[in-house]
C-alpha cells in the first residue's frame, strides 16, 4: 500500500507531523521502532507505590550497571520508568576517544514525549540571530516572526501553563494559568528583581495543564509529578495524550510499531525519496512508498538514517550532514540553605520548577569569555527523610527529626548555550553493528571554552543571587556534565540559507531532495540556552503546512 506521507518516529515531533499531515487530508504512515504503548491502558507502574516494587523504586543496581549503564544516569530513570528507556546493552553506540556522551533514548510509541521534562520556552531573535551575530555556525534562515504563529498553535493545542512576564529574551505565549511559586521562590524572585531588575525568576513554563481539555479527554494536572511513568489523566503533553488521538480521529493514520527504519529509498533520476526500508519485528526487510517523507526519529537517529541511506550520506551535497551537533552545557550552579521560612510549607508535587531566563549578552555583550546566553532552572524545596543520609545519629530523636519537614533549600541548575562546531559530529562506525546489523552511530563531542566560561559565570552569579536573597550557599559547580546530560542533543542536519553549507532550508526541507523533511532536533543551527522541544514542535507544524502546500501545488 502506498501513502501520501511517511513519518519516521512517533515522539514529540513525529506525533505533530502525523497530526498536521493527516488533518490536512493526507494518508499517513507512522513508523515507530519500539513497542506499542497505549494511553492509559499500558502505563503499568503509574499507580504503584514504592513498597509495591521489588527495589522500592530504585531498581536492581547490578542489572542497571550491566544493561542500562547510560540510561540509569537520567534523572527520570527509576524502577517505575525503566520500561520507558532503552536497554543500553541492546542498543550500543560508539564515542570518540576523548568523548563522554550520555545518549538518553526511549524507543517506544510516543518516544521521549513520555519521559521528557515538559519545559516549553519560546526562542527569541537573540537565539535565531545568534549565529549571524557572533559568526559561529551558519545563519538561521528564519526569525521569530516566522515561527511565532506556530508557537501559538502548538502551545494552545498541547496545553502549556506559565506566567506572562513580557521578556524580550523569552517571549510570552498562549499560556494556561501558572502554577504558583512557593514561599521561598516568591521571596527570591522579589529579592533578585530589587537588585537586578533585568533578571526575572518565574515559574517553569510546562506542558502540564492547569485547565483540562475535556473535549480531548484530558484532565488538569493532579500534582503527582510522576509524569515519566505515563499519565492516564492526559495532563501532560505526550504523543499518546494529545497528537496521536487527533491524528487517529482523522481516519488517515496508520501506525506500525516494532519497525526499525534502515534507510530511505532514493531515486537519483528524479532526485526524490520514494519511501523507506525498515526491518520488522521478524527481522524481515520491508519497503513502503510515499510521496513525501518526514524524518522525526530524534536528532541523532534521523541523521543515522540519512548517513546510512547512501554512500557519504543522503541529502548531503553540502558535506555538513552529521556535523555541528550540540547539547546544552549543564551543571548544578548553586545549592543553598534558605533559612527564615520554617513555618511555611506547600502541598502537592508541582511538576515544574522555576526558571531564570538568560540576561547576559542581550543588547550589551556582557558575558565573560562567551558571546551567548545561560539560564537557570531549579526551585526551592523542603527536605524530607533523605536528609537523614547526611545526619549523624540514630534512634528515637533521629526518627522524630525525620518525621517533620527539614530546612528549605534552593537549587539553580545552569544551562549554557552550546556553540555549533564542525568537530562535534556524528558518523557511522561500519565496523560495529547493532542487533539489526545496522552500523552503530559514533559520537564525537566536546564542549569548548565558550561553554566553560558561561558556566563559570553562571556559578558565580547563581551564588550571588541566592546569597542576596538570604541563602547560605553550600555547593556549586562550573564544569559541565558529559555531552547529552541536558537531553537536548540537536543538530546534524542544520537549517540554513545556503545549500553548500546546510542540509535543510527554511521549511525544514532538504536542499537536495524536495520531498524530504527533517523536523526534529537535527534541523537546529544553534542551541539557544532554553529547552528546545517547543521549537521543534512549532517548526514541525510549520514544515507540515508548507509541505502540504507544495504537494497541492504539484511542486513536490
Amino acid at each position, binding site marked *: 500500500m502506498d501513502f501520501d506521507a511517511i513519518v519516521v518516529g512517533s515522539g514529540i515531533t513525529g506525533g505533530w507531523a502525523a497530526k498536521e499531515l493527516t488533518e490536512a487530508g493526507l494518508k499517513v504512515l507512522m513508523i515507530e521502532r519500539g513497542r506499542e504503548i497505549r494511553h492509559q491502558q499500558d502505563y503499568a507502574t503509574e499507580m504503584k507505590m514504592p513498597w509495591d516494587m521489588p527495589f522500592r523504586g530504585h531498581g536492581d543496581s547490578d542489572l542497571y550497571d550491566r544493561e542500562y549503564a547510560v540510561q540509569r544516569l537520567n534523572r527520570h530513570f527509576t524502577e517505575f520508568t525503566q520500561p520507558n528507556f532503552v536497554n543500553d546493552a541492546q542498543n550500543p553506540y560508539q564515542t570518540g576517544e576523548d568523548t563522554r556522551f550520555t545518549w538518553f533514548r526511549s524507543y517506544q510509541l510516543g518516544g521521549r514525549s513520555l519521559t521528557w521534562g515538559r519545559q516549553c520556552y519560546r526562542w527569541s531573535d537573540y537565539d535565531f540571530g545568534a549565529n549571524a551575530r557572533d559568526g559561529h555556525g551558519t545563519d538561521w534562515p528564519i526569525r521569530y516572526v516566522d515561527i511565532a504563529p506556530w508557537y501559538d498553535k502548538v502551545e494552545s493545542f498541547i496545553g502549556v501553563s506559565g506566567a506572562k512576564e513580557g521578556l524580550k529574551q523569552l517571549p510570552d505565549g498562549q499560556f494556561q494559568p501558572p502554577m504558583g511559586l512557593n514561599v521561598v521562590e516568591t521571596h527570591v524572585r522579589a529579592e533578585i528583581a530589587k537588585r537586578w531588575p533585568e533578571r526575572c525568576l518565574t515559574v517553569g513554563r510546562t506542558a502540564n495543564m492547569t485547565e483540562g481539555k475535556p473535549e480531548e479527554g484530558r484532565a488538569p494536572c493532579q500534582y503527582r509529578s510522576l509524569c515519566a511513568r505515563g499519565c492516564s489523566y492526559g495532563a501532560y503533553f505526550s504523543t499518546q495524550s494529545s497528537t496521536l488521538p487527533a491524528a487517529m480521529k482523522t481516519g488517515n493514520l*496508520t501506525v506500525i510499531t516494532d519497525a526499525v527504519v534502515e534507510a530511505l529509498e532514493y531515486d537519483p533520476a528524479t532526485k526524490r525519496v520514494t519511501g523507506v526500508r525498515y526491518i520488522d519485528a521478524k527481522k524481515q526487510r520491508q519497503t513502503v512508498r510515499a510521496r513525501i517523507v518526514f524524518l522525526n526519529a530524534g536528532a541523532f537517529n534521523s541523521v543515522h538514517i540519512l548517513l546510512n541511506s547512501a554512500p557519504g550520506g543522503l541529502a548531503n551535497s553540502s558535506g555538513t550532514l552529521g556535523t555541528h551537533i550540540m547539547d546544552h552545557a549543564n551543571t548544578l550552579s548553586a545549592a543553598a540553605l534558605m533559612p527564615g521560612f520554617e513555618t511555611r510549607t506547600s502541598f502537592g508535587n508541582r511538576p515544574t520548577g522555576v526558571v531564570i531566563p538568560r540576561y547576559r549578552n542581550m543588547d550589551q555583550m556582557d558575558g565573560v569569555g562567551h558571546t551567548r546566553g545561560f539560564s537557570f532552572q531549579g526551585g526551592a524545596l523542603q527536605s524530607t527523610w533523605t536528609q537523614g543520609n547526611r545526619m549523624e545519629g540514630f534512634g528515637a530523636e533521629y526518627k522524630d527529626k525525620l518525621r517533620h519537614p527539614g530546612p528549605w533549600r534552593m537549587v539553580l541548575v545552569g544551562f549554557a548555550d552550546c556553540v555549533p562546531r564542525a568537530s562535534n559530529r556524528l558518523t557511522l562506525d561500519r565496523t560495529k553493528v547493532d542487533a539489526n546489523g545496522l552500523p552503530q552511530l559514533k559520537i564525537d563531542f566536546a564542549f569548548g571554552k565558550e561553554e566553560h566560561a558561561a558556566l563559570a559565570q553562571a556559578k558565580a552569579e547563581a551564588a550571588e543571587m541566592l546569597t542576596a536573597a538570604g541563602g547560605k550557599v553550600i555547593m556549586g559547580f562550573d564544569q559541565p556534565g558529559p555531552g547529552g546530560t541536558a537531553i537536548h542533543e540537536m543538530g546534524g542536519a542544520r537549517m540554513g540559507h545556503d545549500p553548500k553549507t546546510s542540509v535543510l532550508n527554511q521549511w525544514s526541507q532538504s536542499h537536495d531532495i524536495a520531498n524530504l523533511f527533517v523536523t526534529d532536533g537535527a534541523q537546529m543551527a544553534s542551541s539557544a540556552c532554553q529547552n528546545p522541544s517547543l521549537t521543534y514542535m512549532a517548526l514541525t507544524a510549520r514544515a507540515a503546512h508548507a509541505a502540504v502546500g507544495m504537494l497541492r501545488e504539484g511542486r513536490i
Partner: protein
Amino acid sequence: MPKIQSPMARREFMAGMALLMTVAPSLVQAKIAPSPYQTLLREVAQLVIPRSTTPGAGEVGVGAFVLLALAHGLEGTKGFDHAAWLKSTLGPGFLAQPLPKRRAALAALDARAFAGDAAAKPWLAIKRLILLGYYTSETGGSKELRYEHVPGRWDPDLPLKPTDRAFSSDWSAVDFG
C-alpha cells in the same frame, strides 16, 4: 481505517508484565533468604529507626531489604561484603550484649563514619539503605510520614506546624532534599 499494527499481542505483553511484577520479588527474596546476617541487620535497622508511635525498621522487614539491596549493589555497595564487614566491625558478641551496649557500639561506629574515618565508611551506605528501606515501606512511608499518591492540587504556601509530618511522596525533596 485507522489502525495500529503491533506484532506483540497485547494480551501476551500484559501477561508478561504481570508475571514479571509478581515473580521478580519472590525470586530475589529466594536468592538471599539463607543470609547469615538476617538477625544482625534486623537488629541494627531497629536501633537506627526504633519503635515510637509507629513500628521500627527492624519490625517492618528493613533488615531483609538491606540484604537484598546489598546483594544487588544499591547505593554503590557493589564489590564489598558490607554485611560481613558490619558483623566483624561490631564484633561477634554484639547481638548478645544488652541494649545500652549495642547502642553505644553503633553510636561509636556512626560517629567515626561521620567524622570521616575511612575504616568506618561502609556504615554510611548501610545507614542509607536502612533509611531507604524504612521510608519506602508502607509503614515508614505512609504511617510514620505522609504519602499522597494523587495530591490533586498544588497549594504553594501553607502554614507549617511543628507537629506536621513530612511527605515521603514529595519526590523533589526525596531526590534533592
